């Protein structure tokens, strides 16, 4: 499915990501979630090929969706594997290392996001 899912709690930032992805990958449908719970539901409903994931959000962090998808794949409950680009203000090397070791995490990007790098990563992962 040609879907991209953006999970980000700040509306302005979400809109910015959306218009950027639309510009780079106009043939993709873009779905937006303002919290991780919506993001999980949209992920299962729309099977996005790529997820832009903010890690730090209120109530539940981005870790929850990674945990769920990894558990589903590990136990062969789900068969699709979305690529996840984590966008996060990483503070320690340990944090960065533990994220990059996760099964579905394709890239970890700093926040605020350098858009030129995002363009390269989207082009690479969406095979544009």
């Amino acid at each position, binding site marked *: 499915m040609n879907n991209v899912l953006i999970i980000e709690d700040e509306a302005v930032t979400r809109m910015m990501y959306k218009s950027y992805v639309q510009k780079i990958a106009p043939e993709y449908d873009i779905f937006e979630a303002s919290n991780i719970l919506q993001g999980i539901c949209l992920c*299962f409903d729309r099977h996005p090929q790529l997820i832009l994931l903010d890690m730090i959000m209120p109530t539940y962090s981005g870790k929850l969706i990674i945990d*769920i998808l990894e558990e589903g794949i590990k136990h062969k409950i789900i068969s699709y594997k979305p690529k996840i680009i984590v966008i996060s203000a990483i503070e320690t090397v340990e944090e960065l290392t533990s994220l990059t070791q996760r099964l579905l995490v394709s890239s970890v990007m700093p926040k605020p996001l350098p858009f030129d790098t995002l363009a390269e990563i989207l082009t690479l992962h969406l095979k544009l």
Partner: protein
Amino acid sequence: MNKKKFRFLIVEDDEMIRLIHKDFLGELYPDSEIIEAENGAQGICHYFESHPHIILLDMMMPIMGGEAFLDILEEGHRSKILNKKPKIIVVTAIKDVKELMSIGKRFAVEAVISKPLVQNQLKSLLEDWIS
């Protein structure tokens, strides 16, 4: 609800309890499909993949507990991403009355049963729902 096309999902980390639930449901409804999950994360994956009609949900589990499971379904319905409403029976060791009452008010939760599960309680609930 029709007995034959019925799907149960058991979300419980204790293998022995899961087996007891499974055997009990299997005896009551031999033509039903019974899906098992060891934690809330597996449970939510099964929920979206199989859309079970009735869910037996433990609250305290590793990786992801019952609270997050209920939060996901609640938010999915609130934001109109999900349109199906399962019947959830929470089976829990929680003893605090206030906590039990607040679980009972959650979206899709039809009953809260204390552990150890009294099978007659479960049977009478199911008989009301399944023809």
